[in-house]
């Protein structure tokens, strides 16, 4: 990890909490002593549109933007967005981790485009030699915690180079407080400690 760049491209739908996810990962890498930079979508797109965050880890980066087809890891908080991130930014052989929420975009709801099903996503991932991982928590207390479920999955499977649960917890403590912090830390710890499921 000394000189390699690790590029993470995150996307979801406005309102899903991509901002907290990207800020937490950014700060976690910083807590781990790794150079990191990134950028989030703000403004108009947040109104129910695709929201994107770029994160670039390592000492040899300059622009905060991840290049097309070059992300080592794509994290999506929604299934249609997972397909988009796979197609635009994941490098061949990279990892795609997605929370299996389904927030159908307008063309799907108006019958102008087909839904993205888990099967369509799996086929697309296979074609691009991507390692696909589905995250889904049956008993999630609050849909706004899907991002925390994804953080826990990433830590449990060691997907983020050099990061441990401690770094993520410190990052969350930087960003949240009171009952919100307690609730999210509790979920995070529970999911990090859960038994192994699909290996990365």
């Amino acid at each position: 990890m000394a000189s390699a760049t690790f590029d993470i491209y995150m996307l979801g739908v406005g309102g899903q909490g991509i901002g907290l996810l990207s800020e937490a990962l950014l700060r976690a890498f910083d807590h781990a002593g790794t150079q990191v930079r990134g950028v989030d979508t703000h403004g108009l797109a947040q109104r129910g549109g695709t929201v994107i965050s770029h994160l670039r880890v390592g000492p040899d980066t300059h622009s905060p933007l991840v290049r097309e087809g070059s992300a080592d890891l794509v994290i999506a908080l929604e299934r249609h967005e997972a397909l988009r991130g796979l197609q635009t930014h994941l490098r061949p052989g990279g990892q795609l981790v997605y929370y299996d929420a389904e927030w159908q975009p307008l063309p799907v709801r108006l019958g102008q485009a087909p839904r993205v099903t888990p099967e369509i996503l799996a086929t697309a991932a296979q074609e691009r030699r991507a390692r696909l991982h589905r995250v889904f928590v049956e008993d999630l207390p609050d849909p706004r915690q899907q991002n925390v479920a994804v953080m826990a999955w990433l830590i449990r499977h060691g997907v983020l180079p050099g990061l441990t649960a401690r770094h993520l917890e410190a990052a969350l403590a930087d960003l949240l407080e009171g009952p919100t912090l307690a609730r999210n830390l509790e979920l995070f710890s529970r999911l990090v400690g859960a038994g192994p499921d699909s290996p990365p």
Partner: protein
Amino acid sequence: MKRMTDVLLNPAGGSEIVMGNTAIVRAMIESGVRVVTSYPGSPTPEIASAIQTLPAERCPLYFEFSTNEKVATEVAFGAALNGHLACVFFKSVGLNVAADTFVQLGLMNLPGGLVIVLGDDPGANSSQNEQDNRHLARLAYLPVLEPASPTEVYTMFKAAAALARAERTAVIVRLTTHVCHGKEKVTFAPWEPAPPDDTPRFSPQNGPYIPITSLVFPLKRQALERLGRLPGRLDPHICTKLSNHGNRRRGIITAGLPYLSLLDVLPAAREWPDILKLGLVHPLPRQKVLEFLQTHDEVKILEELDDFLEGQIKALAFDHRLPVRILGKLDPDDWMGEYTPDKVARVLARAWPDLLPPPPPPPTVTAPPRPAQLCPGCGHRSAFQAIRAALPPGTITVADIGCHTLGFLPPYEIGQVLLCMGHSCGTAAGLALFNRQRPVVAFLGDSTFFHAGLPGIINALFNHHDFTLIVMENGTTAMTGHQNHPGTGRNFREAVEAIPIRRVLEGLGVKTILETDTYQQDRLTALVKQALATPGFKTVIARHPCMLKFTREQARQGKPRLPPVRLTEACDQTKVCISSFACPSYQFTPEGKVRVHPDLCIGDGSCRPVCPRQAIQPGKKGEA
């Protein structure tokens, strides 16, 4: 939790991960900026969010959201006349609103100094164009610094403030979207809080400040002379940065974020051209550019948006009879979009096809597009549903800027023409001339009403124009992040008396003012029909508070969300809730049936009137 205040006000300085829009506030504080003004607009409103974290008793600066960018610039100008270091910031197209004031600033002697922070938007991420404001800076004889990263935002703002103060002038710091929002660890210098000097030091002796007829010329001469000497007054490391790779054949001149993109692209190149990065983009640092041109066979101008530098650099080479080959914009594509690393690779390949390996083909995307949507419960959705039912075929609908602009999308398709903030009444008036066949309906948001809407309304009254104005009042400046405006009863600091839109319209003498909450769809339909049947200029206030703001406030107060609405057995899958109302909460099951998405529905029930089977019922507590 880490407090932004502690970072921004820490006397010891220190390092912190921040975005450009936060770093600039620390730079303001260290520079001793006393007055900051703005009108909200992407990509800059997070500057105000950072200022908002400063507690009133410890906040070293005064901040206000003014009614528009022109007023904001004037407030900052006035403060600078009194000797305060002032700053105004707004988005790219905000400079058009401010232009009448802005173009005079170069002529003025500003004892306090003024920094103008522009948030340009290459790529039109959240703007109606991607205008290149360097042109306007040139028009006004004002210098422009262009940072590439949050660290440079911090250092260049401080340099701009020092220059503005020393030269008693206005200096522009031009940011772009991903410079505003880019995040990295920035190291801040120590800062010694000092009590402000609030003496009003305005004196006409510092002027002249009345530029009338022949008095303009000495002021213009002074502006040009000052502009000429500025490059020499700036820290040379900020002015330009040379990366010498020993390449005498090829060089690149660039600035801002494209510089960082270039550094990410070049590791794959066959050779490293030398790079001259400009921090000062206006006036051109002629000497450094000239030296660069003299020492290279070919120079590529890697310039986002327009050919602002290119023309000047080619002229410089011509004047000095240099044999260098200068490669500027080669294709309309070079003029468009943000210079991301991918874009820079394509632009460079056009100039030097052998430099980089052939870029991979652009990705094939089959994922369905996801345009921005009105939020669940948004009052504008109910309004569009109700208004559509009132409009006869052939009605011309004129959109304006705000969340309600999204009404142009299917399935509503209301709002067929858009220019800029507050254009709707003027444009509607023109569309209504000689037109007895097709009704004309203009839309306007509440913040825009105050910002630039009023002159169009007054003109409609003054010149007896015949159209209907629908004010889409959601009680906030929603699109840019819920800033207050004169109609909300709060300014940036405190509660104030609201200026109700209805009262303004009454005061102007508008005869027909109809109003309703948009959730009452039948009533709104009837009111719009009534307005259309009334001759002359008439208004409908279609009101409902922003539900995103409302639900966020509820969540912050720890109040539980209302349970989602539910579909009863009466639902026979007519799907009007999707095909016509299109609330994002209504989705399809894998079997193609309508369902209510529990993550999205806020239980507002605004959808209930649209179901012809009355199958939508309030949710029951405990359901989610």
